């Protein structure tokens, strides 16, 4: 038992160290790799907690495929992340600490880990163990729960994955050629650029919407953001035309 605890503590401290390294690291390549490491250590910890199925998934998805996908995404971006001021990291830290505190508040009343009499293990959980042997006759209760007892959940999860795929299909396209098409109104455009207001330069928001977002960036970035966003915020040429289809 005590060996287990030492192992668990060791793995948790590794996770903590890796997590901090990921936060502070600016080389994206290293970050991606460390995320893979994080997943792997996680998987090891799950094994130590006897959640073999979860560990398997974590290893396959977290350490395997998602690392590759992150790499593929990284190729499209800079290799280095911009320096993030500590001020901007305070908020995530606050949110983590607040959530953590809430969890700690609850810990006092949590059942002991592995307690056979805890509600999670005694009520429906125990029922699954009995019923699987009786109803389905397969040794792996996890599979029985996932695919049969709560099969509809898994259906939902499959759809979630499908929706993610569909999203990629919609936003990027499988051949990487999406995103060039531009929407345009079916009629005469009187918006933005062509409105007399815009010609007079009146009634334009003082700071363009994209630059508002950048209010917390350092000063010199702000001006750049303003420029680019204004050039982009402009409407495309609105050509009066018939039905787009």
């Amino acid at each position: 038992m005590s060996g287990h605890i030492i192992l668990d503590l060791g793995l948790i401290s590794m996770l903590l160290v890796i997590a901090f390294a990921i936060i502070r690291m600016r080389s994206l390549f290293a970050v991606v790799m460390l995320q893979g490491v994080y997943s792997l250590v996680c998987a090891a910890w799950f094994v130590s907690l006897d959640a073999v199925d979860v560990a398997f998934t974590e290893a396959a998805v977290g350490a395997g495929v998602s690392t590759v996908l992150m790499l593929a995404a990284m190729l499209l971006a800079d290799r280095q992340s911009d320096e993030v001021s500590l001020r901007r990291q305070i908020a995530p830290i606050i949110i983590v600490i607040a959530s953590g505190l809430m969890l700690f508040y609850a810990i006092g009343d949590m059942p002991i880990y592995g307690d056979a009499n805890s509600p999670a293990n005694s009520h429906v959980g125990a029922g699954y163990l009995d019923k699987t042997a009786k109803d389905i006759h397969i040794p792996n209760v996890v599979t029985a729960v996932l695919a049969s007892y709560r099969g509809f959940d898994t259906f939902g999860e499959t759809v979630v994955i499908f929706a993610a795929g569909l999203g990629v299909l919609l936003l990027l396209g499988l051949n990487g050629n999406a995103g060039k098409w531009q929407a345009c109104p079916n009629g005469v455009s009187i918006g933005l650029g062509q409105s007399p207001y815009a010609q007079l330069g009146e009634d334009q928001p003082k700071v363009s919407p994209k630059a508002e977002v950048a209010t917390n960036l350092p000063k010199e970035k702000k001006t750049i953001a303003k420029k680019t966003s204004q050039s982009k915020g402009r409407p495309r040429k609105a050509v009066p035309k018939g039905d787009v289809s």
Partner: protein
Amino acid sequence: MDILSLLPPWLLTHGVALLVVLPLLAGAAMAVIPRERIAWTITFMVMLICMLCALTLALQVIDQGRLSYKMGGWEPPYGIEYVVDALSAPVLLLISAMAVICLFYASPSVKAEVEPKKRAAFYGAFLICAAGLLGMVVTGDAFNVFVFLEVSSISTYVLVAMGHSRDRRALRAAYDYLILGSIGATFFVIGIGFLYMETGTLNMADMSNILDGLDGGSRVAQVGFAFIVIGLGLKLAMFPLHMWLPGAYAHAPSFVTIFLASTATKAALYLLLRFAFTIFDLSFDYVVTILSQFVLVLAVVGMVFASIQAIFQTDVRRVLAFSSIAQVGYILLGLSFLTLSGLTASYVHLINHAFIKGGLFLAVGAMWYRFGITRVADFRGLSKTMPWTMSAFTISGLSLIGVPLTAGFVSKLQLATAAWERGYGWAVGVILFSSILALVYIGRILRVAYFETPPQINGVEVLKNEAPLIMLIPMWILAILSIVIGINAGWVVDAAGRAAELLIPTQMIGRGL
């Protein structure tokens, strides 16, 4: 009910599942369907069937009370249970009916806003989103809620991002939404996890029983409750957690904005009602504290704050988005009274606001469709260039303000009465004040549209260019509905009353006052 006897018995037993499964499967089919026309037709048919399903379910609920469906044939605490009752049936009907109404409008709107070869998949994402919302509402299993929350969320992020062919800022908005939405979903699932730890079950009814037996449960359940409230708060745009909403509504394609504005936050609100009043309930002191104080304060601040913010927006869709946040405040205010009349008012407004905001966004979408405009300043002379659209906008706008004989008045009157009965005279003042603010932000748009002359292009005044009939029909349906409810609100109030009775059982009335 006579209608029920005419329907095939199979539909009566399996309709509950069909409601969710059909759009999910159709959504999957959209990935491989090449033709936009076919995709639209299938989507439309599917949602129509869903609406009829929801209608039969609603009738059945009136007839028989709670309906239950055992997914996979397993008994509830073990398998997943689907439940339709007086609380969920109207929301189901609302979501599916709004989907059908939006789809009328989609066929021209999507053509103008979405890349041709992506349109089929776009409808697919829409179907999945609708199915997710329906699933969230119809399920009786806490974890299944999370699954469908994710189904709807993921597809919503995609749908919002599809606005990028109109405005690149849509991508940023979708990203914001993704991050905040994921935090919300994570909080929610942490809450569910805690509840499972406390009760050992995921079935809502079972959970409620066990929690009652534990007299509210230990700190684990309490913390779980806090996480669920905040997680859902993010999803339903409770006031300071609303930051994702304006961007998402302002930059998504019109069709998506309409659907989201009228259904997405409503489904999350439904979940809050479901969790706070039936799984937890008012016999637990901490629930009473959170709802009657925390939520009350946020609701009131949100009503005023978001309304003021709406006044200062230059983009009409942002105005309406902030107004949505304020309206969520109204709904939460009614909820926080913890009285039957308060909940009834809340539920009435939940339904009415969907119609009102849907109508407004429909009109705004049509204006973009014709003239490419969304800013308040560009609305000049729209009463002359698009009279019918502007009239529909006006009706819905008046309804939003709460002018008598419109749906908005009904819900605000209900809410004010509930506040009065609760002894919150000041809340009546806040409702009134917020309505005045609504008057200002809607009036600002109406003034530009009615009192200024249409703009000129190359010296020629823009001519009348009314939206196509297929876009006018849905917005007028909603506008007329708004008036119909304003004149005869009985059916909505009755439905809301039944839902409220479900939320506060008789022995619970007066608890927490």
